[in-house]
C-alpha cells in the first residue's frame, strides 16, 4: 500500500527514457497561437481569458512593473494548465515536484529583489525596517525582516508543492477507501463517494487558485520593488 501510494509521484520514465520533459511540454500544445484577427473558438476563449486575467493582475503596477506582463501571464497559464491536467486519471503533475517549483520560484523572486536593489536601492533597503519601531528593537527586527525576505521563494515553492501533492494524495486515499468499503457496506461507500466528488470539485478550484496565488505573490514582490 505504501509503495502504491507514492508511486504516482515518481518521475515518469518509459523504458529508461525520461519522458518527464514531454509531459512538461504537453500543455503548450493546448494553447495554439492566434494567427488572424478572428480566430477559431479555442483561441478566442483563451484570448478572452488571458485579457481578463492580465487586466486584473497588472493594473496595480506602474510602467516598469508592467514589462513583466508576459512573464506573469505565461506563469499563471503554465501552472494553471499543468495543475488542471494533473486531475485527469493516471496523469503525472510536474508541479508536485519540489525541484520544479523551486526552479520557478527562486529566479522570479530573485529577479524582483535584484531589480529593486538596482533601481531603488534606498527604498529596497528600507523594506527591512518597518516604520515607527522603537530604537532598541531595530537590530532584532532587521534580522527578522531579512529572514522573512529569504523565506519568500521557499514559501512560494513549498506552498504549491504541498497543496497539489496533498490534494492528489487525499483523492488516492479516499478513492481507495470507497473501493474497499464497497464490498463491506455500500452505504458507507456512498458517503465516501460523495466526499470524493466534493474533493474533486475542491481540487479543480485549488488547481486554479494555486496558480493565481503564485503569480499574485510574485507580482506583489514586483510591486514592492519597482
Amino acid at each position, binding site marked *: 500500500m505504501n509503495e*502504491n501510494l507514492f*508511486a*504516482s509521484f515518481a518521475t*515518469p520514465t*518509459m523504458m529508461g527514457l525520461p*519522458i518527464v520533459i514531454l509531459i512538461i511540454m*504537453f500543455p503548450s*500544445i*493546448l494553447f*495554439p497561437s492566434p494567427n488572424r484577427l478572428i480566430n*477559431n*473558438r*479555442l483561441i478566442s476563449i483563451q484570448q478572452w481569458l488571458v485579457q481578463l486575467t492580465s487586466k486584473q493582475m497588472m493594473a496595480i503596477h506602474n510602467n516598469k512593473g508592467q514589462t513583466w506582463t508576459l512573464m506573469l501571464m505565461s506563469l499563471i497559464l503554465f501552472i494553471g494548465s499543468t495543475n488542471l*491536467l494533473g486531475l*485527469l*486519471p*493516471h*496523469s*503525472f503533475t510536474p508541479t508536485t515536484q519540489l525541484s520544479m517549483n523551486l526552479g520557478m520560484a527562486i529566479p522570479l523572486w530573485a529577479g524582483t529583489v535584484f531589480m529593486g536593489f538596482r533601481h531603488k536601492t534606498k527604498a529596497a533597503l528600507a523594506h527591512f525596517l518597518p516604520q515607527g519601531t522603537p530604537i532598541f528593537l531595530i537590530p532584532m527586527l532587521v534580522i527578522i525582516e531579512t529572514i522573512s525576505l529569504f523565506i519568500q521563494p521557499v514559501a512560494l515553492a513549498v506552498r504549491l508543492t504541498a497543496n497539489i501533492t496533498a490534494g492528489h494524495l487525499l483523492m488516492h486515499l479516499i478513492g481507495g477507501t470507497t473501493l474497499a468499503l464497497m464490498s463491506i457496506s455500500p452505504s458507507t461507500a456512498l458517503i465516501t463517494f460523495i466526499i470524493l466528488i466534493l474533493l474533486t470539485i475542491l481540487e479543480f478550484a485549488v488547481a486554479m487558485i494555486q496558480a493565481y496565488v503564485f503569480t499574485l505573490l510574485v507580482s506583489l514582490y514586483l510591486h514592492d520593488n519597482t
Partner: protein
Amino acid sequence: MASVEMWYSSPWTKSLPMRVKTKLGLPLKEKKLMEVKLGELPSWILMRDFTPKGIAGAFQRGYYRYYNKYINVKKGSVAGISMVLAAYVLFNYCRSYKELKHERRRKYH
C-alpha cells in the same frame, strides 16, 4: 506507355495534376500510404525520410492535419480537445501499467 522512366524525362508529365498522375502511375517515392501496393510496402517504408528533420516534419504534418480538421474550424466543438485529452489519459495509463497491474482484484498477483 506509362512507365516509371517516363516521369523523369519530360517537364510536361511532371506538370500534370495529381489525380491524373496517380491514375497513370507514380514512382514509389511519391506515393501516399494508401496507394502503395502490399508487395511494395517494405521498400516504401525504407525509402521514408528518417533523418531528424524528416521526423520533425512528420510530427508537424500530423499536428497540422489534426489541428486543421478539428480545431481550426468555424464551429469547433469540445470534441476537438477532448480527443487530445483522452489520448493523453491513455498514454499515461500505458506508461503506468506496470504499477497498476498489482492493484487488480485477483487472488494471486
